[in-house]
């Protein structure tokens, strides 16, 4: 889904906490499970269902009454907002689609703290730099070939070799997997270059598995345009850039046949067109957020159901930390204190969400420091600016430093009206503390160049799920130039924390270091979250009512479609059925 959606309400935290608590209890029942609150040990089993040949079942599942089935459907039409090509993982792609085709060793994602076995039957940390995964022995690729340990080793190697993989740095840097040892057909060992306690909870829940027999002869992975072969619950049977995607259920999937036989996904880029098609009944669901102005009309429509979901993303104000005065921590802290996040939420997103005062990692992830709070404090902002000798000497309402007014621009994409409105409000809020900001609208193509050109003071953009819910990406962002640019731009405090993070060899220790990095970032942010938006999504329940929310994926993902008991077992649902 596109990063224009909003985030969860506070009420969503309750079921998420319950789900996490349930998973914690469940893992405690396994033979050698470790929870983040456990004492650190060298050997850590993430999860190990007793019977690896059976579909995954939740250790916490008290009985069959914990799941409900929405029934089956022969065919659903879901409007998708963009052409993502033939789902090549090494080119442009969208994970809501690739997740239908590909599976990972653990599920559902790094966005929960207790991923569960999926392609793996168990994953165990043998020592600080070694993990062992035992694989299910009943998994086949869509072409009938068996899934083996060799495929796992090949996949990691391919991601390491690929120059363009979204997962490349997750095997070469955070963490660094030096070798994948094939012990036997169903056992692999991962040897890391430095301690990798997150490998089980993050990396293996993030890496989709690729078939060696399909990819081994490929010289340029990025150029592959063949339809993908995965192990996932759906096969992509047809892709046409002028019309869309057709997926057929993989009846042989190890978790059981999906509940919908055929998924037809026309590409409809314009939101108004997509939601018109939903209204006419030409599509059964739309895989994008409902615009705020359509929420109430759709709620009043008896044929349409609107569900508030919890997208793990938000709009942010990025600051150019390499350019004065943004290179001064006090100035960044002053900007952060001057931002009235509640006003931004109320005005720009009509109050549908939460004030973004809990830091850069989305508060609905287990990786957000729980004690972060950034209240609006214009008085504190003014004190900080005074301390920098930024004073309004000539009484025109704008502070000066060395005789020059403190002025900067906020760049924003011209096709994002809500972001433009947010930028305009920021201009007012910064003006209230004596800073002269102005909005500069750019076409979206020009916005994409800002990251490398560094030709900006600040700009508004959407932070995607991967960036605000994946803890290893958070660390990577300190080195890539996004949140900082270590080691090119010195930041000793952050560099020290990153080193401590790398040296830590338990989940608890590493999580603590992560939280410290978040606190340091929040004290002088290089990127200011503007609001955590809610994310209403809509479908026609008359054709199928089985859509359920998964953390970070909204409604339209494979966890709505696989047998409900498998989704519950994978800890993939925000509100598991009771």
């Amino acid at each position, binding site marked *: 889904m596109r990063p224009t959606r909003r985030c969860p309400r506070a009420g969503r935290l309750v079921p998420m906490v319950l789900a996490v608590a349930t998973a914690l209890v469940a893992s405690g029942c396994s033979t050698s499970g470790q929870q983040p609150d456990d004492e650190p040990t060298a050997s850590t089993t993430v999860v190990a269902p007793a019977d690896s040949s059976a579909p995954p079942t939740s250790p916490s599942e008290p009985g069959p009454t914990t799941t409900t089935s929405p029934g089956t459907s022969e065919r659903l039409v879901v409007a998708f907002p963009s052409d993502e090509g033939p789902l090549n993982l090494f080119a442009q792609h969208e994970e809501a689609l690739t997740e239908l085709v590909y599976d990972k060793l653990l599920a559902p994602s790094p966005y929960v703290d207790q991923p569960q076995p999926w392609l793996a039957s168990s994953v165990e940390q043998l020592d600080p730099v070694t993990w062992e995964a035992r694989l299910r022995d009943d998994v086949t690729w869509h072409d009938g070939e068996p899934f083996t340990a060799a495929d796992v080793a090949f996949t990691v190697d391919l991601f390491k070799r690929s120059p363009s993989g979204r997962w490349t740095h997750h095997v070469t840097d955070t963490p660094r997997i030096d070798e994948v040892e094939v012990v036997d057909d169903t056992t692999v060992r991962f040897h890391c270059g430095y301690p990798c306690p997150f490998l089980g909870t993050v990396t293996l829940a993030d890496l989709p598995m690729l078939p060696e027999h399909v990819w081994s002869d490929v010289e340029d992975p990025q150029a592959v345009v063949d339809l993908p072969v995965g192990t996932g619950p759906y096969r992509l049977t047809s892709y046409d850039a002028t019309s869309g995607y057709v997926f057929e259920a993989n009846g042989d999937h190890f978790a059981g046949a999906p509940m919908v036989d055929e998924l*037809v996904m026309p590409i409809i880029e314009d939101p108004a067109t997509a939601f018109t098609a939903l209204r*006419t009944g030409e599509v059964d669901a739309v895989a994008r957020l409902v615009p705020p102005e359509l929420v109430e009309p759709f709620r009043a429509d008896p044929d349409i159901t609107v569900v508030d979901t919890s997208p793990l993303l938000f709009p942010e104000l990025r600051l150019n930390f390499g350019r004065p005065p943004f290179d001064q921590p006090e100035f960044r802290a002053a900007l952060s204190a001057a931002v009235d996040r509640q006003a931004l939420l109320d005005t720009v997103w009509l109050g549908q969400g939460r004030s973004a005062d809990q830091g850069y990692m989305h508060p609905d992830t287990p990786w957000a420091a729980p004690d972060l709070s950034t209240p609006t404090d214009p008085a504190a902002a003014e004190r900080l600016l005074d301390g920098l000798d930024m004073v309004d000497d000539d009484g025109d309402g704008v502070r000066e430093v060395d005789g020059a007014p403190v002025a900067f621009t906020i760049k924003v994409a011209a096709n994002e009206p809500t972001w433009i409105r947010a930028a305009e409000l920021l201009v007012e809020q910064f003006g209230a503390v004596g800073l002269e900001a102005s909005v500069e609208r750019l076409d979206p*193509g020009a916005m994409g160049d800002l990251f490398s050109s560094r030709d900006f003071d600040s700009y508004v953009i959407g932070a995607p799920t991967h960036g605000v819910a994946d803890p290893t990406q958070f660390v990577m962002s300190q080195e890539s130039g996004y949140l900082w640019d270590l080691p090119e731009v010195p930041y000793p405090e952050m560099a020290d924390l990153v080193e401590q993070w790398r040296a830590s060899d338990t989940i608890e220790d590493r999580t603590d270091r992560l939280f410290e990095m978040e606190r340091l970032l929040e004290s002088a942010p290089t990127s200011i979250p503007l609001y955590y938006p809610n994310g209403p999504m809509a479908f026609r329940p008359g054709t199928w009512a089985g859509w359920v929310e998964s953390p970070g994926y909204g409604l339209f993902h494979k966890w709505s479609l696989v047998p409900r008991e498998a989704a519950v077992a994978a800890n993939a649902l925000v509100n598991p059925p009771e």
Partner: protein
Amino acid sequence: MRAVMSRVAQSLLVVIVATTLNFALPHLAPGDPVEYLYQGSAGSLTAEQLDDLRAGYGLDASLPEQYVAYWGGLFRGDLGVSVQHNRPVVDVLLERLPWTLLLVGTSTVIAAIVGTLAGAFAAWRRGSRGDVGLVTGVLVVDAMPGFWIGMVLVAVFAVQLGWFPSFGAAALGGPTAGWAAVAAVAHRLVLPMTTLVLATVGGTFLLARGAMSTTLGETWLAMARAKGVPPRRLATHHALRNALLPVATTLGLNVAVMLSGAVVIETVFAYPGLGSLVYDATIARDYPLLRGAFLLVTLGVVATNALVELAYPLLDPRVRRTGRGRS
């Protein structure tokens, strides 16, 4: 023959100049296709990885080197690889071209016929209620933006009446061959085509009305009338034929207008034509695809204008005689 050769040479020159401009202009705008597509906003890739990606698309070379390579590719029929679609530009264009030809082609023809006939009728009945009504109606419709017309048509004929689909060019998973497929495509074509016709017919109507009015005021037409030529024949064989010339002249230019107008209409109807492709490629700074699409549009406009010019002798015997005299 000399006129034809001269016309072909002119067209070639136009294509070469336009191709050069089309190559250079997208680079004037800030932006980078690899940044746009792969960087996202999470800083997922390092600068080295981004450089590797640029090299993969040949975007790491200097602009002059890329220009030379582009012309080399053109002579081989290779327009490069689309960064956005990760496929050869030729393939991407060819899968969109039929839909554009269908939408813009039919709309151009229908707008030309309807606009010309209505304009001629209004001129023939100049000052009558019919003329006033037509002019008023055309001006009202012409004042509406194309996307607005499309939205109104969707609201009425798709949402309220349910007569037509609201999006797409062909039903995904529907019939792909035979009359059923043709009927399905035609069914989905009605609303976008009607929108494009309504959005563009005004110009043709006013041009035809003006040309026809001028022609009707000519003394030779009064002479024909005095000689007893029946009114219907006078209108169709004499006045209309002469009034067609300026309409035909603008037909080639209208192709470009139609293509640009189709961008918005293709968006409203999720119609997979070249217009929306160019729009998306511009946003993404997909230089190879932009160059290819611009080349295709340039060739289309140049070819249409050349054909119109070559068709003049068929419409106007005076041109035929002049041409004969020259050769």
